[in-house]
């Protein structure tokens, strides 16, 4: 019997696969449905203090190798999200509350309220590539990140994950800032800033112009980021970007990820992607006679 269990910052997961933020995570009903389909944890849609409508459509483009989206952080606000959390938490699958804000105090308040609603961990969205004043606009400055993470860590007793952007040459410095602030893990990576042009109409397709690229096109970039981070930080890394089968998940684990999130793969492979990927991981462990998945973390390094 293969051992898929992992632990991140004290949070035990039955398997290393997590639903990534922004996919099937806006309502309690959707989270509960996904929870029954095999992931070790579920990350909510990013929630802020106030409701946001996000950008006008088009907000998503399908490409042969992934998606580009610029939703613009639509969310009902933390107050109205409590009903969704109640439904999601009742499933028993650990819920990771994703939050976004522009100041350390607002981030800390959101974390505190997520903890109160039953979140098993929080994930700080310091990496959304398409919302002015939020996300990567905050998350590319190591000292700002350190301040935010510090305040969040001191405001809750649950693990604090920080989701990083690949759209910076300061990736490692930002991650080290997270570590020195007491952050429990980093999540790498959010989407790559990207765009698409309609040749027929001679204009960008997305209403916002630019968005974030996800899916298999992102995987080599995410892998490189995780590999680099593993060399430089000691806190756990949660890999994300273009995983849609067990081989992709193992690539991240061997690069140094303790757990792996799947987002776009839910759309491209279907809702069964978690069960199929977990099954593939278990079969692999059996075939190579490895005791547990945790023993494979970072094995691609010298």
């Amino acid at each position: 019997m293969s051992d898929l269990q992992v632990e991140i910052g004290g949070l035990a997961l039955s398997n290393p696969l997590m639903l990534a933020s922004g996919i099937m995570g806006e309502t309690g009903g959707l989270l509960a449905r996904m929870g029954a389909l095999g992931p070790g944890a579920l990350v909510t849609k990013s929630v802020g203090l106030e409701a946001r409508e996000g950008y006008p459509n088009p907000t998503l483009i399908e490409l042969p190798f992934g998606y580009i989206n610029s939703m613009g952080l639509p969310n009902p606000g933390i107050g109205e999200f409590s009903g969704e959390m109640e439904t999601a938490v009742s499933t028993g699958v650990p819920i990771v509350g994703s939050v976004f804000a522009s100041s350390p105090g607002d981030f800390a308040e959101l974390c505190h309220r997520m903890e109160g609603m039953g979140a098993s961990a929080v994930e700080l969205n310091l990496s959304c590539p398409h919302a002015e004043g939020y996300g990567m606009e905050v998350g590319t400055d190591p000292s700002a990140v350190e301040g935010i993470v510090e305040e969040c860590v001191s405001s809750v007793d649950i693990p604090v994950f920080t989701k990083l952007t690949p759209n910076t040459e300061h990736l490692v410095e930002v991650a080290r800032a997270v570590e020195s602030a007491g952050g429990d893990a980093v999540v790498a990576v959010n989407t790559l800033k990207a765009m698409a042009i309609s040749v027929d109409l001679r204009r960008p397709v997305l209403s916002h112009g630019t968005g974030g690229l996800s899916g298999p096109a992102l995987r080599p970039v995410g892998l490189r980021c995780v590999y680099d981070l593993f060399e430089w930080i000691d806190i756990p890394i949660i890999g994300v970007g273009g995983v849609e089968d067990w081989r992709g998940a193992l690539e991240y684990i061997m690069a140094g990820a303790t757990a792996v999130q799947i987002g776009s793969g839910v759309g491209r492979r279907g809702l069964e992607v978690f069960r199929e990927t977990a099954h593939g991981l278990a079969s692999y462990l059996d075939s190579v006679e490895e005791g547990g998945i945790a023993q494979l973390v970072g094995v691609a390094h010298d």
Partner: protein
Amino acid sequence: MISTQVVELQEVFPEARGMITLRFRLDEVARPGQFVMVWIPGVDEIPMSLSYLGARKGITVKSIGEASGALSSLREGDRMGIRGPYGNGFRMGQESTLCVAGGTGAATILPAVEALNHVDAALGALTSSELLFEERARASARKVMMSTDDGSRGYHGTVVDMVSDEVGEYDMVLGCGPEPMLSALLDLCNGAGVDCQLSLERYMKCGIGLCGSCALDGQRVCADGPVFTGGELSHMEEFGRSRRDTAGRRRPL
């Protein structure tokens, strides 16, 4: 994988008062009840049921908001973007079927009426000038019943009230229209012991089951629907009661 295509409008014509049809070439095969995401450049992208299938597809638009208003102002030769077709569509067989449409719900229902062999159609509207697709329905259905809320044409009352006595004679009911009407139709079908499939409408962003903006009770209208069975709908706590706004907040219908 379905990418956005830009199509040119080949034909634009009024369908009823305040409602126009836009026809365009789209080679993708579509089933009755499926929808497309329609991009009006610089304005919005909205889900629209296909009211005409075949190679030259069509959508039928009632001008109610900014996006539908912009669509209504398009002319032959204008261009718009299309993604799709998306969604499950109606499951259709050889059983005796009643198709029930309220208002612009007829745009979703008519392709089903045309595809079915043993079918009757019930079309309802607020007033006679807003009745859609009478001729198309008469060309395909065994029987066509009409209702108007103001009594200006056919049965005086709602389309659901009109079919209440005879719904039990059918093996299957297909429905599309405003959600309070669909909720009444579901109650009617459940009471009569008749299976039904109803097509829902929700605000959508991605259209392909990722973002959750069209969710009700853990179901995605875009990817799991837009057509749901009476059995599925009977267990949905949000059906007929609430929808979600653009920020994802639950609001009463």
